[in-house]
């Protein structure tokens, strides 16, 4: 992922795609449409990869998705997750 620095939803979306492609070894995830449901349907992310994604978001953007969004509505799609993260992103230390 690239450092966030004033994150906008589009760049966060790209970062999340890149992370998922890298974590799973699946290049097709680089082309995920923003409306894609990440969990349960559409791409069939397993629980371990989903948890890795949330930990990476916390590390890179300082956003604890599970802690800040108790209903987990932000996890509906790639786009809703990226918007949630972009709104709350706080620059973190580098990788």
């Amino acid at each position: 992922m690239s450092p966030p620095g004033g994150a906008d939803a589009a760049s966060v979306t790209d970062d999340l795609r890149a992370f998922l492609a890298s974590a799973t070894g699946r290049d097709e995830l680089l082309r995920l449409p923003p409306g894609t449901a990440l969990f349960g349907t559409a791409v069939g992310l397993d629980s371990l990869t989903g948890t890795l994604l949330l930990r990476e978001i916390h590390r890179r953007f300082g956003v604890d998705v599970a802690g800040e969004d108790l209903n987990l509505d932000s996890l509906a799609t790639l786009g809703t997750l990226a918007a949630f993260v972009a709104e709350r992103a706080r620059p973190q230390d580098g990788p």
Partner: protein
Amino acid sequence: MRPLRTGSVPDGSTVSQCETEMPGNVLPTRNAVPSGDTVDVWWFDTRAVAVTPAGLAGLDRGELGRAESLLFPADRHRYQVAHMMLRQVLAGYTGTAPGQLELGRERCPQCGSLSGKPVVLPGPAPAGARPVPSFSLAHSGDMVVIAIAGHAVGADVEQDSARCVCSLAGDLHPDDTAWVTGLDGEPERHRAILTCWVRAEAALKCTGQGIGHGLGGFSVRPGQSAALAVNGCTVRQLAAPPRYRAAVALAGGATAVCVRKGS
């Protein structure tokens, strides 16, 4: 796929496992539900199983809808194969045709939602009906594992991640986190984290909670004994294909694991 071998597993314990090879896609039509402390574990490599119209005809509306919702053909294939094989395996134990089996979910014992343990719903019992087995399905990467037992059972398999998984150490029980972080070398830590993950997830699938409520409530790190008693289950590491970790948990005690080779 090749049959799995009995032998040393990553945690250093040795699990007694029987092996049965099944030719091609032909599964036996008559299997006895394992008794007492035995679990039957079926492995399938989804790359070696063809999706057939007959197989798809056995899936229910929910399964077909889920398969249809998957964006990528490879995900769809894996999902279809996993559920076709689950129904074929269950048909062998119940004597009910794959498409006639009704699958449902119990309530989660922790929150009461209908996200608990998947079960075979008992239909009207015809003469000579066989006992309904407990089952657990898991898939990761190309591999599918299906555990069958006479009482509650849970199974999990995870493919090694292409990325560092050290961030998951904090999700484990504090004792396991300390054990993992104290290991020398990242590959060793990654293996240990995934080993703990599959053991915890197998135990939580056995009780029906799943990992939605967290998986750090109890320690699952491998010890000196082959079996670990935790959360009312006995957890055993399974011998898994290269780059995979897997575990099975059985309510009460699991002293024998019978590995069945699918296709």
